[in-house]
């Protein structure tokens, strides 16, 4: 079984590439039992939402006033 540190690597890479079946299984299983990693997964997902909101604010809302 992978450690929490290694699982956080998978959680991060999940945002950059498709995980393999084995990796997805390992992560899902780990998350069932690990509260800290579940929280971390929420944090990573929110980071992506926040950076996207920041980017859209600059990109799309770029109408000149």
């Amino acid at each position, binding site marked *: 079984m992978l*450690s*929490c*540190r*290694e699982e*956080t*690597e998978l959680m*991060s*890479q999940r*945002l*950059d*590439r498709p995980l393999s079946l084995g990796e997805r299984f390992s992560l899902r299983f780990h998350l069932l039992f*690990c*509260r*800290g*990693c*579940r*929280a*971390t997964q*929420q*944090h*990573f997902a*929110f*980071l*992506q*939402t*926040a*950076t*996207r*909101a*920041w*980017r859209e604010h*600059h*990109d799309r809302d*770029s*109408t*000149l*006033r």
Partner: protein
Amino acid sequence: MTPQELSRAVDALRPRLLRFALLQLRDAAAAEDAVQEALLAATLHVGQFQGASAAATWIFAILKNKIIDEFRRRSRQPLADVDVEQEQAFEETLEEQFDERGHWISHPTAWADPQASLEQKRFWAVFEICISGLPEKPARVFGMRELLGMETEEICKELGLSTSNCWVLLHRARLGLRDCLSRRWFGEN
């Protein structure tokens, strides 16, 4: 668009362009240069803009390219000593969160209603402080990935990094930002 219209539009846009460039380049002079170059390019194409909004989109696209050019240039230079030290200290803080078996020493806890933060001005100030606090290399890769919205493969190619190296840097950046936002905004200790 006439040159006069463009010039008025640019006056309104400039602060946002600077902020956009500064968060990523982390150097006021470099940000100013990138913005100047993008605006200069825009004056050469003024006739082709249908309106202020089209001009802004175009200028942002050029600015992004200028930022990538600067990142590419920096990636070919060795890191300054202070940056190497900052990176080592950063690595240590990340590693201190795990025990020798790689398990959390103190479990992170879920953030309460993070979506609501997006509406708060103070959140964005903290968000920018946390990004500015990352060491140069993870910040660069994270910025290209999430702030410029590039694909990982493209980033590796531009910076001459291996894919796995890119993933490591993105992982470090996310762990660092998670930690910073937890402490400075969501009130985890």
